[in-house]
């Protein structure tokens, strides 16, 4: 395989995906996720530096240190990721594909082994967690486990509590522990550090997975303990106890890392693999030795296939550039978007409904998987002019760069959601039930905040919620849908923007 040709093609493949990378960087800037990005890059840099220190037998200048067949596999993974990203309009996957290309480039230039290439690629794939499509679901499952564990501790401590989905409430007080149960706060940096540690120690993939599982386990245990501690302090207090977190998050994070490392010691002691490093060193060397049979026929075929795949990645990037798929970027800053939502004002009455400020909702919290450093939530109460029956709540939640599943909030609070039904005007509605009598109906829609309609931009979720203990009639639902359409129109006019979009975009 001609290393220069391969590196040149890799550089071109990365260059054509620069717009997607820029978009992700814009999103990271908007969401204030620089710390997560820093930790990820720190991990990669650490692997690169330690890799430079660990040089195997040198190959010739034009001979790659990686077997062609392995390189082909990595590039195929990059192609699939990029293809998925381009087709699903998700720049995160393009980032991942490009991450593998970058790893391959560095590995070829610096003579790294295939294992190190894979490790760097995997680390570069770890885009900040909040940008993952699955982030709300992952947080939801993790939080459910953490809250359940906190519940077990409270049961052992004979503190009476109840659970509404992922959120705990105490029997002795009249509010939910929304803040304590708002998500796993330190899992992502822990996972990155554990991955880096495992890769640095050149552990086999099974052991890396074991460490990851241990890290996630201890994260959940630590978060559950934090919630339980919060509940212990709050139990029996009529008013909300405010307390300064101080260095607690850092202590918890260090505890998670220590326990994961302790788990690693257990693995070593139990399996008696004291000489892991030596074994892995020999494998690292093998990675170089494999390049000795580069000239055989099979290797040549693999090389041509790898170049073809690279050309495919280049073509894909070219295609997305020609469509200006990622060129739109974010045309509005986080501060401007937040200010626009914060300044929303609604008329005091609309179509026979009086709109007033809502008492603070019990079911509201600052989602940890949000896309802004601070969470924006507005809420109004809508009362029909004739009677107090059928009072609804209008919520504006956000700001999102990409809407999560529209029922995320209600699932978090333990509502069982019926099928989400999209409507012609872009809004969606769903029925929900909880415990034995609670019923609800929600009409919701994502609305862009400021900016040009043709660009991807920040969104807020505008929802009209009716909760009742009586079945909600078709007439009530229709009325709710009409009212929601009016409210959306009023909000869109204030945000000086006419288009609303559904949950699939941008």
């Amino acid at each position, binding site marked *: 395989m001609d290393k220069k040709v391969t590196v040149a093609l890799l550089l071109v493949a990365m260059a054509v995906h620069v717009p997607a990378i820029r978009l992700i960087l814009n999103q990271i800037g908007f969401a204030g996720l620089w710390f997560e990005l820093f930790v990820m890059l720190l991990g990669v840099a650490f692997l690169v530096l330690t890799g430079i220190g660990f040089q195997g037998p040198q190959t010739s200048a034009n001979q790659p240190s990686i077997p062609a067949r392995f390189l082909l596999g990595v590039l195929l993974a990059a192609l699939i990721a990029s293809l998925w990203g381009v087709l699903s309009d998700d720049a995160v996957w393009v980032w991942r594909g490009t991450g593998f290309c970058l790893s391959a480039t560095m590995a070829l230039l610096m003579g790294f082994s295939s294992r190190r290439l894979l490790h760097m690629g995997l680390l570069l794939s770890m885009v900040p967690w909040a940008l993952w499509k699955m982030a709300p679901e992952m947080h939801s499952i993790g939080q459910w486990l953490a809250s359940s*564990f906190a*519940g*077990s*501790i409270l*049961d*052992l401590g*004979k503190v*009476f*509590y*109840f*659970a*509404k989905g992922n959120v705990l*409430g*105490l*029997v*002795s007080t*009249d509010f939910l522990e929304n803040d304590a149960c708002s998500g796993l706060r330190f899992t992502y940096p822990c996972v990155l550090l554990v991955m880096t540690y495992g890769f640095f120690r050149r552990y086999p993939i099974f052991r890396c997975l074991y460490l990851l599982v*241990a890290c996630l386990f201890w994260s959940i*245990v630590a978060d559950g303990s934090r919630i339980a501690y919060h509940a212990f302090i709050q139990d029996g207090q009529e008013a909300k106890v405010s307390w300064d977190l101080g260095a607690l998050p850092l202590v918890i994070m260090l505890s998670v890392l*220590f*326990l994961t*490392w*302790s*788990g690693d*010691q*257990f693995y*070593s*002691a*139990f399996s*008696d693999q*004291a000489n892991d490093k030596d074994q892995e060193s020999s494998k690292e060397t093998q990675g170089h030795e494999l390049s000795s049979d580069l000239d055989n026929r099979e290797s040549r075929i693999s090389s041509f296939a790898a170049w073809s795949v690279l050309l495919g990645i280049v073509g894909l990037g070219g295609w997305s550039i020609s469509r200006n798929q990622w060129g739109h970027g974010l045309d509005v800053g986080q501060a401007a978007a937040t200010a626009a939502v914060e300044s929303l004002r609604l008329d005091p009455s609309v179509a026979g409904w009086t709109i007033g400020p809502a008492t603070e909702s019990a079911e509201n919290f600052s989602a940890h998987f949000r896309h802004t450093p601070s969470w924006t939530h507005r809420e109004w109460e809508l009362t029909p002019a004739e009677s107090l029956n059928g009072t609804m709540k209008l919520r504006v939640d956000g700001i999102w760069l990409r809407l999560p599943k529209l029922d995320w909030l209600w699932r978090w609070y*333990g509502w069982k959601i019926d099928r989400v039904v999209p409507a012609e005007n872009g809004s969606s509605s769903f029925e929900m039930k*909880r*415990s*034995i*009598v609670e019923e609800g109906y929600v009409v919701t829609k994502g609305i862009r905040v400021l900016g040009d309609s043709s660009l991807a931009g920040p969104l807020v979720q505008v929802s009209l919620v009716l909760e009742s*203990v*009586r079945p909600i009639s078709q007439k009530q639902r229709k009325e709710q849908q009409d009212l929601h359409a009016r409210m959306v129109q009023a909000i869109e006019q204030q945000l000086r923007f006419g288009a609303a979009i559904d949950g699939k975009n941008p």
Partner: protein
Amino acid sequence: MLRFLADLPVRTIAWISDILEIALRFFGSFLDRGNFEDLDRPVGIYGALRRRLSQFFGFVASFVSYPVAGFFYRGQRRRQFLWSIPFCLLGLTVVTGSLLIAFNRERILNRYLARVQNAYTKQDGSRGVRAAMRWIGDSEFANADRKFLYSLVEIQNGNAVTAERILERLSPRDSTGLGIAHFWRASQCLGNLEESKVDASERRELLDDFDWHLERASGVSVGQMAVLESMKAYWDGRLEDAESKYRAVWEADAFQSVGFGALLKKLGKDQEREFVLKTGAARIAEQLRSDPWNRALRNQLTSIYEMLGEWGRAEVVHIEGYKIRRDKESIDAYRAFLERRTEAALREPRDLRELAYCLVKILRTSGASPRVQDVMARSLLRPQEELLGLQKEFNQWLVEGLDLPMVHLSLAFCKGLLGDDTSRDWHFEQAGRYEKEAMGIANPLLGFMQEASKEQGEYHQRMQRWQLGDGSIDPKGP
């Protein structure tokens, strides 16, 4: 033979030894982690299976013996073992704790159930509801009886609609349901039947529902069931039967006086009704004397007095109750009583003396609340002759020394509406002199009266003319 018997002990020992050796070899092979010489290595499917099995047993044995074996490790492995202690100890604690909770789930939920029962007994509805939240969504634990308990605490918590919905779900038409929920549904049907607006078809439907639920009702006292059966007889047109059944219940339980009185009224037996109510009141008053803390008895007694129209006696019973228990429930009961008394006084033909009394009392207990504003407008924005009559009654109450600040305040409004501005201001100042807080009540009341009198031109002008100052009163007076 003798030789055989002589060898027998030796042979027995040899057999036992052989058996032990075979057993040890067999079980020992499982614990031997594949430590086979190449020639001994088992081959074939059986051999592979045996090898895997032995590896598995070896793993389990190492795992179980790890906490002890670790202390015999040397060198780096010993260090690793020591550092793994936090992981093992905490991990074991977490897993054991979680398993402990999982296996004791029923016992824990029973603890919460007891909490709900306790809260219900102490009438702490909100806490009861929150404790019930732990198990109400658990379809296995929350059986019909427990759901019924939940509905009771919801009622205590003020969520009657939620409780009704639960009871409706507990008494479906398509399955058995819970007897007591059927009883509640039957009572609900009865309440609906007695509403005057029900037309013939609705009545038929309600009667059908009433019969259906009554047949399945259970879990309440015989007397309570007899009441419903008596009412069924009434609605079926068996009036004699209805009366005799209810009478039997009333004779056993004076608490049924109000209900029986209502039935007798429907049957047109007013004299008998009065006798029943008076007898019932005497019986309950007797019981209340021996148990003055009993709130149910007190409420029942006031209800009977109210039915008899003896508002003054009912008020005395309420005030007595408030003196015994100065809590929110007593205050609410008294306020509700005043509401009923005021409504009765406002009914045509009006009893002006009673109305003046109620207005003063309601002003005292509820301030300038929207409800008081409404009563004020309905009482004072009336024809001049009636207003003059009401003013006379206020003056009479003034002479009798009833709540002077509130009587002066009421008189100020009467005088203001009648156009006597000098007397209006004098009464207003007197009210402020007796109680400065009365001035605070006057402001929102005047605003409301100005708004409410818009349709009555003269009254409106007079109200508009009245400008209240900042509420400061010269202590020396005019």
